[in-house]
């Protein structure tokens, strides 16, 4: 695996820590007594660390992920990545940041159905302007370590749920991101396949030095992570280390 992934290993940087500082987010600020989705959440995700966020529906898990990833702006507080505040960052800057520094895995994979697996994986690099041959070479390096060897030309409709989700993991990692954000990445998978996907997601992220932030309802999934945060009513109410 090490040899195949050598070309993907990112250069060490000063401080690839993700910080959330007293984050507040309200979706209906005009509605009186409407509880905020985030009510002053602070957390730090160390380089290479994997963190699971658990909690009941509506507790603010996905909002926290969106705010930390720069998808949604917080009403109060700040997100700091690599020593830089995102508070005043323009939409274009945040878009570039998401493309170049972060990776994403969603519940249903969100692969492009018309593209073969290898082009799906190479897509973030192509969107960033990388030469196609180089982008596909980098994408190809991820297939064997993820147990996807030989499936490069298959389209998402020709893959099993677990295979499709591993392709999504490859797509999230192909740009050697600093952080991978995963929103219920195993929500549509059975227990066995879910374990396989988590094995690959945590192992490969750690190998590439990427931090991992996973939103999940599943305690088994959280068990793969270094740390689990519990949320309720927009606040972190508990923390457990493995």
């Amino acid at each position, binding site marked *: 695996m090490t040899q195949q992934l050598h070309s993907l290993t990112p250069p060490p940087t000063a401080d690839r820590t993700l910080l959330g500082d007293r984050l507040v987010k309200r979706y209906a600020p005009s509605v009186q007594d409407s509880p905020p989705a985030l009510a002053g959440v602070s957390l730090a995700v160390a380089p290479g660390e994997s963190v699971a966020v658990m909690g009941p529906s509506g507790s603010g898990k996905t909002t926290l992920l969106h705010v930390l990833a720069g998808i949604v702006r917080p009403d109060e507080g700040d997100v700091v990545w690599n020593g830089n505040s995102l508070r005043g960052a323009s939409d*274009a800057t945040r878009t*570039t940041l998401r493309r170049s520094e972060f990776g994403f895995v969603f519940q249903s994979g969100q692969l492009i159905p*018309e593209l073969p697996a290898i082009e799906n994986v190479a897509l973030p690099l192509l969107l960033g302007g990388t030469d196609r041959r180089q982008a596909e070479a980098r994408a190809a390096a991820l297939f064997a370590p993820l147990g996807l060897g030989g499936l490069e030309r298959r389209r998402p*409709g020709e893959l099993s749920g677990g295979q499709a989700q591993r392709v999504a993991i490859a797509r999230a990692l192909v740009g050697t991101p600093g952080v991978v954000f995963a929103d219920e990445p195993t929500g549509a998978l059975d227990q066995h396949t879910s374990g396989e996907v988590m094995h690959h997601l945590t192992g490969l992220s750690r190998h590439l030095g990427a931090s991992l932030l996973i939103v999940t309802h599943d305690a088994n999934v959280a068990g793969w992570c270094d740390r689990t945060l519990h949320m309720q009513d927009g606040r972190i109410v508990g923390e457990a280390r493995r």
Partner: protein
Amino acid sequence: MNVLPALRTARRIERATDSSGRLPNTLAIVAFSVATAALLIALAGLHGFQVRDATHPTDVSYTYVGLAACAAGLLAAPVLTLGGVAARLTVGRRDHRLATLRLAGATRTQVVAITLVESGRLALLGSLIGIVLYAGSLVPLSTLRFEEHAFSYRQLVVPLWWLPLVVLGVTLLAVVSGAIGLRRVAISPLGVTARHTPRGLSVVRVLLTMAAVVVWVAIGSSLQQAGVAVLLVIVTLMVAIANVVGPFVLGLAGRLIARNARHAPTLLAARRIIDDPKNAWRAVGSMGLAITVAGVGGSMGSIDTSDMNRTQQLIAQDMRTGSLLTVGIIAIVAATSTCVVQAARVIDRQSELRALARSGAQDRTLIAAALRETSLPLAITVALSAGFTVVMMAPFAQYLNLATAGWIALSVVASIALMLGTVRLTRPLIRQAVTEV
């Protein structure tokens, strides 16, 4: 199986849907309106020449009836395509709602009935609006001069009993197209899924077209003395064959482009063409027809008339006018088809677009990919149609003058500009999908 309560429930859900959820219905109504108006305008032209032939017959008035019938025949393909596109839109964009109804206990029969009634309702509404559009077009149409005379309103207003027939026809087209569209999807309580991925298109399409071209080249020159109506019927058949080979060529070109694409927007566009070349052709095929009509009609109208008598000169001049009118209507119908297909694609891919935007794809990249999905097949179709027209007119080359090239080029450029302009109308829709992260 009780259909009426299901229909009432579906209507209540429909009324409660917000404006963005109603967009597919609005697009479908626009498409049915344009299709109906185009059909009625073509019939009005035919009726006008029939009335002239009956009330003021001349040596060539029956030839004009034949030419008008050919023009109406040429319009049939794009109008049917637009109607079909609109019907697919009414069927295909209800995934979530249909699945929810199935989950709530609706039978497959009830869901099919809801969908078809809804398609018919939108077609009925659209065709009624189309009648209003047709009525509004009578003023500009009455300024056109054929045989040195403008049409009177009496000549252009079709018999009133034609109107319910047209409305019925459009509604039936929507229901039948909707039923065909439903056969391709499985509506289960867990969602609406396509039954299979599209298969590759048969090479028989190409062989058929090559055979037709060989036959044309062999017999074309012997047809120089044949009546214009006969030639236009042959042109119509050739256009039908172009519709057979068009999707095949688009699929082939898509593979070539995908293999050599260097950037994400081109790669995405090419892969989507390969995935469903028939859909890509539906979006742009009518423009190919417009170009062929512009080329053939324009060429015939540009034949050197200095040795002809006054009547022949008039026919040549009127063919130019008729071709221009036909091309204009086809271009509007084609642009509407493209716009509806493009909007439907964006609506279909909202979650995909959103995921890409979340992952850091820039708005302009996603918009470029979406626009290229139309502009690539359009460019291929333009090249194909222009080549096809050159082959069609080769037997008559000795009679053509230089004005032909200018005429064709102008019509082609105007038609393409109209189509690309309407595609750009869908940019806000893409931006909306992308920014709702």
